[in-house]
């Protein structure tokens, strides 16, 4: 089986140096105004002198059941078997639904590009170009404190639980991303509540579950609805024909008091007698 890559981030080890972010910019030639990875979290918490610090580098979670992938009308997103959720710019129409769909607010858009240059979606790629040559992603590779590590998802989950078990006093007893949104490939350990790291509270069911279910019902519904409407139309037509074969039937809920007039084209006679001018 292919290795399902993932990251494990340990907030207790992160010193907020942002080497990971710079590494990403260089490795992926990210423009000055853009970033695939950014600082998240409260920073300093509490009141002097009872203080805490916490922050994390925030980037794509590489969800196991990505909402960006589910939402994109043209299928520009794709969860690879080896972990990364990748984007195919050649398909993208720039609708930005993926940005709205992503519960982690990850994809960015080229706001300052016209149609000639082409405006695309930007997000962390898991450095697939590095994975291909057997290197870990640039952000992970450079992290001076090993706050970020990389490996097989299952191994990292085990590692994360082992860290919690070894220091239950140090960590919140939860591995964020193990189950969130159906599981993600970015796993996070923390000493402060995850919301303090800027992470959203997430259910275990991927947020795309309901819309995907609805979408599954769409075609059957459309067919059924079309059949019903045709039936109704035909039925009413028949009824009307039966009732007054010479003239159109009264609408079922109609007032009934108005004698229907035959639809004569171009009669031009108005009920009140005024001649319509043409």
């Amino acid at each position, binding site marked *: 089986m292919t290795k399902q890559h993932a990251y494990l981030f340990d907030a*207790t*080890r992160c*010193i*907020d*140096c*942002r*080497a990971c*972010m*710079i*590494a990403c*910019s*260089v*490795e992926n*030639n990210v*423009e*000055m*105004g853009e*970033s695939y990875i950014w*600082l998240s979290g409260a920073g*300093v918490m*509490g*009141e*002097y*002198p009872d*203080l*805490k*610090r*916490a922050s994390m580098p925030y980037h794509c979670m590489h969800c196991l059941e990505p909402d960006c992938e589910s939402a994109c009308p043209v299928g520009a997103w794709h969860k690879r078997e080896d972990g990364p959720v990748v984007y195919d710019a050649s398909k993208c129409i720039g609708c930005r639904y993926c940005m709205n769909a992503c519960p982690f607010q990850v994809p960015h858009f080229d706001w300052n590009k016209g149609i000639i240059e082409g405006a695309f979606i930007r997000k962390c790629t898991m450095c697939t170009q590095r994975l291909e040559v057997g290197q870990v992603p*640039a952000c992970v*590779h*450079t*992290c*001076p*404190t*090993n*706050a970020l590590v990389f490996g097989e998802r299952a191994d990292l989950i085990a590692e994360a639980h082992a860290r919690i078990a070894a*220091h239950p006093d140090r960590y919140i007893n939860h591995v964020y991303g193990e189950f969130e949104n159906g599981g993600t490939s970015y796993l996070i350990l923390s000493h402060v509540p995850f919301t303090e790291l800027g992470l959203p509270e997430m259910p275990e069911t991927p947020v795309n579950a309901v819309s995907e279910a609805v979408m599954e019902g769409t075609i059957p519904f459309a067919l059924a609805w079309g059949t019903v409407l045709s039936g109704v139309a035909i039925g009413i037509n028949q009824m009307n024909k039966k009732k007054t074969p010479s003239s159109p039937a009264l609408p079922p809920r109609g007032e009934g008091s108005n004698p229907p007039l035959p639809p004569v084209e171009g009669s031009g006679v108005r009920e009140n007698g005024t001649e319509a001018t043409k």
Partner: protein
Amino acid sequence: MTTLSRRDFLKMGGAAAAALAVGQFVPPSVAQAALATGQVNAQGDGEIATMCEMCVWRCGVLAKVRGGKVVKLDGNPDHPHSNGKLCPRGQAGLATTYDPDRVLSPLVRVGKRGEGKFREASWEEALDIVAWNMLEIKKKYGPEAMVFSSTHNLSQVQFENLLQAYGSPNYGTQRSLCFNAMIVANLMTYGMEEPGRSYEGVKYIILTGRNLAEAISNSETGTLIDAIDRGAKLVYIDPRFTKTAGKAAEWLPIRPGTDLALHLAFINVIISEKRYNAEFVAQYTTGFDELAASIGQYTPEWAAEKTGIPAETIRRIAQEFSDAAPNALAHNGWRTSNFVNSFQTERAITILNALVGNWGVTHLPAGGEESGALGKPPQPGYPRISALRLDGVPWKYPFVPLKLGVFQELRDNILKDDPYQAHGWFISRQNPAQSIPDRRKTLQAFAKMDFIATVDVIMNDTSWFSDVVLPEASYLERYDPLMPMGAKAFIRQPVIEPQGQAKSALWIFKQLGERLGLGDYFQYADEEDYLNQQLAPTGVSLEEVRAKGYAELPEGEAEVYKWNTPSGKIEIKSSTLEKAGFAAIPTWEEPPAPKSGEFYLLTGKDARQTQFATHNNLLLKKYDDEPRIWMNAKTASENGLVDDDLVEVTSEVGKIKVHLEVTQAIRPDCVYMTPGFGHLSMGLTTAYGLGASDSDLHISYTDPISGGQALSQTFVTVRKA
């Protein structure tokens, strides 16, 4: 200068290096050389091992090159300073090399000094101008009228060679602004500049203002986090809740300048409760009895009043520390230039470690920067120097080693012509316009000079006030002498061709030496020849070193229990200090404190910047915080100030305007500024206009023993601008 779209700087690079008319050698084609050693393929793609120079830690780098451009830097796993990692500055090194503001041609001033008007010149002409002026000054006023200054770097041996051959005693280094207190204290106590620290198996760590999470020393920072992860307890002492404080089990927001009191009280508890390692103390130290006799006054209760840290806490930490010994480590700090009593603080920390017997476990003898295993080019003897040094070493500061010096005093004495007048200043890889406190005075000193020449990579503030700027090739474009570390000597080698006309320091110093008639002192044909001469005794070829990134050296066995002090032991009582009439055992000295309404002005590193050097780096700027002055939230609201207010900060010597950062992370009686902003040079288009300079506010105070500047001993008022 080149105008480049800021966005595209990464796409640029490797502007074809023009061969130069001047000099004996033309730089070898980097790609060709790398191809020969198999580091790159025929397309010029590959990875070349070299060393980072974004700060003085010098991590190993693997530079990824693509067709003559360097596209990514990764940490070299073979290098003990990087362990495969690079800090943010190391990662951003490309943006320094490809800085659109790089100086890529020798420049000669045409406007008024400080106006920033330069014309491009050939190397031939620029070097001739520098040499002519230096000779002129020597002729008219003697060699001592020429000041040389440089901050530690790998080519510094040749810088020192130049200055000694020229015959000037006046050598300015960054050290008195940085670590003089620590080095001199170590010399007095251990007879060595700085013992090595080992975090292996450490259980208890006290960091006194050593902000390792932000003032990064890559490998040490990583090791510290590993140690904490393994369960070591970190006690962090700093008036600020830094990122290191965020990793500590305990943060002691000490009143600035009272670290000495705290450590004296630690020692008091350890001695009075007999918690010291009696065996170790008896066998390896001198002066314990004198210390024991005088320490009684420094009770935790006494220290609590000085430091603001509760007596019970002090007592408990002393107990925990001694319990953990010898797996305990009280860190000396690095930039220990905080107060005039910092030297005594350093002594106290050193002694604290000795008392509990940490030696041999967390503290070890360290190898020096030079290795006997490497060769060097032959050199004639230097001329004898009779003139006094302007910085008062040793006539005023007898304990300050010559190569440390007292830079702020040098600057002050230039202004005072004491004991004589200086006329020229040759600066390399240094930014005294910002690093010396009281910037106004430094600019006045510049103004007094007949001639200033600077070797730098960008138009920093010092270059801006220079008459000639000599562009050095960046660290990714040049060779430097090998750097020995333990059993290896690491190489810095070019991974791309030097851009524009940039040249290595080895080349520049040799060229200058020749024009000064000192050619005999520079007996190397070119950089490769220099390295070959270094490697000669080892039998390793340069090709091999280039391909591997280092040369293996025969390792000398270091003796652990040996100290180069007069007594040969760890000197708790310093015989040297005693002879000179200074306090021979650490003794409390009351530091000055701010008046009511004033704040301590603190300074300290930011993980994204190095000193005064990197603010023009686009990648660092991209991820750095806005440079604002920190103030405690409660203090701010008491003073009617809110976040982001523009405030006027005034000290005895200067006044600046800067935006306020309201934070919980600082003592209510302190404010803090990241150093290095507030540039004067408009040649730094990215950095110019960002923040303000704390050097504008700093007052120069010199510790009389170590010569260290007291950077936290400036008091300021803050009001809404």
